[in-house]
């Protein structure tokens, strides 16, 4: 169990292109475990990408089943290395927050159905069809691997900076 500190912007690792992982070894499995441990240790967190732990590698952990109202048909814990977006359809605007941009939310347009393919910590290829909020979370984590934050995805001025009190710590992800 290793809970690590979540890196926040303006750390440069969040704005760079994360490198491919390739073969999965003990180091990669440790990174996977750290992602999972840190994600579960952070209240309200449903996903975490390696750059958010300061590691410029293409990997993320995700689990939307921990939400107060878990989305139907979700896959529970997903950990993928070198994930690739195979398919993205639909379009929906919804509120997002990010552990690495604390106390801030904005509306982001995302695909509603995605297919993502990656390598599991066990070294197997896994293809996941995700919909709704889980699809949104996948796209959010994939963005982290390309150095994109929600601030780069803001859909329109009117959708950002809602004039309300900041979300409390740990409640950034709805």
């Amino acid at each position, binding site marked *: 169990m290793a809970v690590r500190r979540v890196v*926040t*912007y*303006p750390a440069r690792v969040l*704005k760079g292109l994360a490198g491919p992982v390739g073969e999965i070894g003990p180091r990669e499995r440790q990174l996977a475990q750290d992602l999972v441990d840190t994600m579960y240790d952070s209240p309200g967190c449903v996903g975490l990408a390696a750059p958010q732990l300061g590691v410029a590698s293409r990997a993320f952990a995700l689990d939307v089943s921990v939400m107060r109202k878990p989305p139907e048909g979700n896959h529970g814990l997903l950990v993928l290395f070198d994930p690739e977006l195979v398919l*993205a359809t639909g*379009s929906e605007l919804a509120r997002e927050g990010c552990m690495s*941009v*604390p*106390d*801030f939310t904005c509306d*982001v*347009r*995302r*695909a509603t159905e995605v297919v993502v393919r990656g390598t599991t910590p066990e070294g197997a290829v896994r293809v996941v069809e995700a919909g709704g909020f889980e699809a949104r979370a996948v*796209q959010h984590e994939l963005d982290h691997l390309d150095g994109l*934050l929600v*601030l*780069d*995805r*803001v*859909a*329109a*001025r009117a959708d*950002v*900076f809602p*004039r309300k009190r900041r979300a409390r710590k740990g409640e950034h992800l709805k």
Partner: protein
Amino acid sequence: MHELAVTAIGTDRPGIVATVTRVLHERGGNLEDSAMTILGGQFAIVLLVATEDEPDALAVALEAATAELGLTVSVCRTDGTQQGIDPTHLLSVYGADRPGIVAGVTGALAAVGANIVDLETQVIGDDDQPVYAMLIELATQDETAVAGAVASACEQLGIDHTLRTIDAETY
């Protein structure tokens, strides 16, 4: 009828908008456009009103009605002819909080003739590592010039940015 521009700002409390707009309504004015919001602890009103009132007369009436609210009011005539314009692009700018971000970026926009339609700023992030975020809706005919000017200004300021056409799909 002509058009007057009214601004009013004061410490936020309930009743500011109600009082200001009641005066406009009672004097036969018609609210054309407005922006009203809280900035810090201040409530700010900027509006255009079509009215028969002269600027001084309306200012006196507003000051009398809002004396208890402690608003600072100004009224001036506009030429009333210019139409609003639609933004073509959304520019998102963010970086470690430092002086000169707004001046630097908007200076670059002005230099290439881009017209700012809407601009909002906010300091976000942790207290020990504040992040300045600015969203600008702008109108331009020359995306290439704007992209270049903004990129070089942001590089100089050491901040990040994204320029997108408005309503563009983002994946």
